[in-house]
């Protein structure tokens, strides 16, 4: 077992560099994080009809996700119970059954084994089909986003999302129409540890002005002010950062939803037109975040930018590599023209050939692979920005940081990372439900601020 106290120091908000490139840590993550948490599988809009399926991975485990006749969704491991071959090689489709290429075993769309060639003549009836179905995985949906979980003891999905779900409703429910994902996903391989992009999306607005300086300058618009960190900006008024019980977190830049989009009349209009209904449905607190730009990670590996509308899954492929899957988020109620334009704009910024995406890749690769060096790996990484400028907020749940540029949600991400990596079971984790926020010893920032009458 890895020494988690050494790897993640919560009080001082530092982490060992080892967490990005170490096989043992990676194995433990697969067991205790990817084996335990709810992992994003698909959006219901991608498998609308009975028999529609998609293949994906949970950690490194291949899975098939299938819409059932009764409208529910099932998922199972995409590995034949005979000799282990992959049962389905297509990425999507509609199937009544899945036939293994190797010896022809046939599995139903519910994963059960329904036919075995030469069963009577060569197995002589010894195969019990009822015990040879593809192993099933828990599946639950949150606002149409389907997640899977290997751990029977994990809390239900909506509890796992917790306060983060409350925030997500801001746009996943919004004015009532909900959102969907536009696929198929773009896919690319990036040589980095899965946590580097996960932490980047959960709370790194700091890098935006520097890493993306060229892209922002070229795009123009509001965010060009961030380029090169040149402008004198009132950072504390521009946004907030949030973290929640199970490590999910995000940062918001106020009123900046569509700021990466060059052509955005349709999107702006949609946000303006729907804002009153959002306030009515969900209250002013969330309406205030509705037209903001959000950078988010659902712990562990599902990240998205609401506003830019790129939706990413960082599938781990060993400690030093990931496969990036990229979808686009659109509101279901938008007109087709607006949806199309949003997809275009999202692809141009954060697609495989996106002008911003490619800036990030280099940092992510290098943050990972410099740790090949033995001495380098002994070093530590710092995530202290905004420490003590955060705490319980009078309106917003979770822990709230005072600026969108800060590392509050890094601290939340690694707090839960350490907890999950240390715990023997979900029982251990749940026992901490009322104490998790004690990691913020000094959590009275907002109270003090209110006290000062600011």
């Amino acid at each position: 077992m890895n020494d988690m106290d050494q790897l993640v120091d919560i009080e001082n908000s530092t982490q060992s560099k080892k967490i990005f490139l170490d096989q043992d840590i990676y194995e433990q993550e697969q067991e205790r994080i990817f084996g335990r948490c709810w992992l994003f599988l698909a959006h219901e809009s991608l498998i609308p009809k009975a028999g529609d399926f998609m293949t994906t991975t949970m950690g490194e485990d291949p899975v098939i996700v299938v819409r059932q006749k009764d409208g529910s969704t099932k998922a199972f491991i995409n590995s034949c119970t005979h000799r282990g071959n992959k049962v389905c090689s297509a990425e999507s489709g509609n199937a009544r059954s899945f036939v293994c290429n190797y010896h022809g075993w046939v599995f139903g769309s519910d994963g059960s084994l329904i036919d075995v060639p030469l069963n009577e003549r060569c197995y002589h009836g010894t195969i019990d089909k009822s015990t040879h179905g593809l192993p099933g995985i828990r599946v639950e949906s949150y606002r149409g986003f389907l997640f899977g979980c290997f751990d029977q003891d994990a809390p239900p999905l909506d509890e796992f999302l917790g306060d983060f779900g409350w925030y997500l409703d801001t746009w996943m429910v919004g004015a009532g129409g909900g959102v969907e994902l536009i696929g198929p996903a773009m896919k690319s391989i990036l040589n980095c540890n899965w946590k580097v992009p996960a932490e980047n999306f959960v709370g790194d607005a700091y890098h935006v002005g520097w890493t993306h300086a060229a892209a922002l300058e070229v795009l123009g618009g509001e965010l060009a002010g961030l380029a090169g960190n040149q402008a004198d900006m009132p950072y504390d008024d521009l946004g907030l950062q949030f973290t929640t019980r199970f490590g999910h977190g995000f940062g918001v830049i106020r009123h900046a939803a569509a700021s990466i989009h060059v052509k955005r009349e349709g999107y702006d209009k949609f946000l303006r037109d729907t804002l009153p209904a959002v306030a009515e449905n969900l209250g002013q607190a969330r309406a205030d975040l509705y037209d903001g730009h959000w950078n988010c990670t659902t712990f562990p590996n599902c990240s998205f930018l609401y506003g830019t509308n790129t939706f990413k899954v960082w599938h781990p492929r060993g400690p030093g590599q990931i496969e990036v899957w990229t979808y686009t988020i659109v509101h279901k109620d938008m007109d087709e023209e607006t949806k199309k334009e949003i997809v275009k704009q999202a692809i141009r910024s954060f697609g495989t050939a996106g002008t911003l995406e490619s800036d990030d890749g280099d940092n992510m690769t290098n943050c990972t692979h410099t740790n090949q060096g033995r001495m380098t790996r002994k070093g530590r990484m710092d995530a202290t920005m905004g420490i003590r400028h955060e705490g319980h907020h009078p309106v917003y749940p979770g822990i709230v940081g005072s600026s969108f540029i800060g590392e509050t949600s890094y601290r939340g991400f690694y707090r839960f990372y350490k907890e999950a990596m240390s715990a023997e079971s979900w029982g251990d984790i749940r026992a901490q439900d009322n104490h998790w926020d004690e990691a913020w010893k000094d959590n009275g920032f907002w109270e003090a601020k209110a006290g000062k009458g600011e």
Partner: protein
Amino acid sequence: MSDNTDDKRFEKCVDDKMLREVEHFMLREARLLDTEQLKEWYEQMVSPEIRYVVTCTQLRNRNERRYTLPDKVYIYDDNYQQLGVRVTQFYDPQHWRVDPPEQYCRMVTNIEAFETDNKDKIFVRSNCLVTRARRAYEVDQFFYTREDLLIRSEQGNLTLLNRTIDYPERSVQGRNMLILL
């Protein structure tokens, strides 16, 4: 992908003189892009009416009929303005990714050129291999078939009006595809 029979676009080859002009166009384009003369490429070789599209195709079974969501994944879907953004970004002094510079080598082969219904437009098919070397150890390779429509501009030179690439590698190994293909 359609069935494998040639369609009408491949009916009539251009004459040798025209083919030479097309080849020269393709090779000059490769040279300008390899040698960081993106601005020259953009201003001299690209039509302001350009549509520049790179897609790849989701893997589905050949006999798939019932699943009807689109199978095309757009990686580029650019017009002249958007291509211009990419070119400007390349030269920006804060564009850290290409500093130290990357090295490129483009190979363009199997060039075929065909007449179209419009005498000013030529349909060109070619196969390409691009290598991008960067950061001492990284060599990315991109290989693909291009289908281009060239148009003769008012100045008399050929310009790129349409580029369509159905990129064969489903999961792009080369970390990003921010490179003009």
